């Protein structure tokens, strides 16, 4: 232990834990205490060693493993606002059931309509909009910036446990601008970024069984279109007019 009982106060001052009055009293003491002066020098020496690069943030691959384990352990949560994976899983189950019934086309369409109206899981839709809004903050939109799908697609290799389809829609006036990793519905997902004029379109992609036709929703002034095809779930979100966003979705679905 230190030889002067004020030494810990010298340290507290270094750590910004002293009020102005205490600091003034300490300064008067220090002026005539060689022990405290020596302690101050030693503390400054130790402090100088503690540089920022000693901080050890979680490595990217470990972060992914942790998030994956958390997603697997995520309990189903009650209530519509917080319902995410649980209700979504049930909702997906409904779809595969309805598809396997083999109903006639007209009947299926009617049933689909009945299912569709309440079908968009509310928690997830909010997450999609929140993810989009978060990405619009400066510096968050894309991890890989490129108009070339041959650059964007390989970027996801090793960052996700699936390979998201990346399509070039420049000819349809929806140029690709890049992509990023996002975290939605309890799992890491791909986010592809497209543009129409000044409007940003986020297209979130992750694996899912079944094919569902596009459904449209609106939250907080953002339009959202959701569909599934080719083993993937797609959620497009933008502040574009709904007709234009539906045009984007149609172009995406028809593009090779």
């Amino acid at each position, binding site marked *: 232990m230190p030889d002067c009982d004020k030494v*810990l106060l010298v340290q507290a001052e270094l750590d910004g834990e002293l009020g102005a009055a205490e600091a003034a009293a300490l300064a008067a003491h220090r002026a005539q205490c060689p022990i405290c002066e020596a302690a101050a020098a030693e503390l400054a020496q*130790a402090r100088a060693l*503690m540089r920022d690069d000693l901080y*050890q*943030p979680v490595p990217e691959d470990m972060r992914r493993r942790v998030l994956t*384990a*958390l997603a697997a352990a995520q309990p189903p949560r009650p209530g*519509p*606002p917080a319902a995410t994976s649980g209700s979504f899983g049930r909702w997906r189950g409904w779809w595969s059931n309805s598809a396997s019934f083999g109903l006639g086309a007209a009947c299926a369409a009617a049933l689909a309509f009945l299912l569709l109206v309440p079908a968009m899981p509310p928690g997830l839709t909010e997450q999609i909009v929140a993810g989009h809004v978060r990405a619009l903050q400066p510096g968050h939109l894309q991890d890989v910036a490129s108009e070339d799908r041959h650059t964007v697609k390989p970027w996801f290799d090793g960052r996700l446990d699936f390979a998201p389809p990346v399509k070039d829609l420049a000819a349809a006036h929806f140029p690709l601008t890049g992509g990023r990793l996002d975290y939605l519905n309890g799992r890491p997902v791909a986010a592809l970024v497209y543009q129409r004029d000044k409007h940003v379109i986020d297209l979130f992609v992750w694996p899912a069984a079944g094919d569902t036709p596009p459904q449209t929703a609106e939250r907080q002034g953002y339009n959202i279109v959701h569909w599934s095809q080719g083993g993937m779930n797609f959620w497009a979100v933008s502040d574009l007019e709904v007709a234009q966003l539906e045009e984007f979705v149609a172009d995406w679905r028809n593009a090779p």
Partner: protein
Amino acid sequence: MADSLPSDTFEAVVLPHLDAAHNLARWLMRDAASAEDVLQEAMLRALTYFPSFKGVNPRGWLLQIVRNTAYASMSLNRGVELVPMTNASDEPDDAVSRLPSSDDDPETSLIKTRERDRVRRMIAALPIELRETLVLRELEELSYKEIAEVTRMPIGTVMSRLWRARRLLAQAARRDEAA
């Protein structure tokens, strides 16, 4: 609907502190693999306990869970905590951290990396109760009160541990320079 955006979910409240959780786990455990085990276990515990979390300091709450998990893991693997990380270059992530950053010439960057590894070894050689106090103060920048909460120690103990940690570190640096 618009007012039901989830701002109180585990993702929004706890996940932003994943780096802090890893930093503490990494400094408490002797290698990257056991730090990952502790991190995984602590995050799963946090997910389980999250519904009952009512506090205002999610980072301190998470760090407390990480610390408890790490200590439980060390008492299962008795003796592990007594072995300091003597050689940082065993680390699988070391090759990456040794890559030069773009704003340094290779020589400067190599010197910086060596200096960082030298300090890392000196901190790793500190007794665990001093090391955790130092890391929580200097790297996580917690206040004395927050450190006292995370480590469940009186503030006076936090202050004297911090003082001993810093003095040992300064002494080690002087010895290192003399050698």
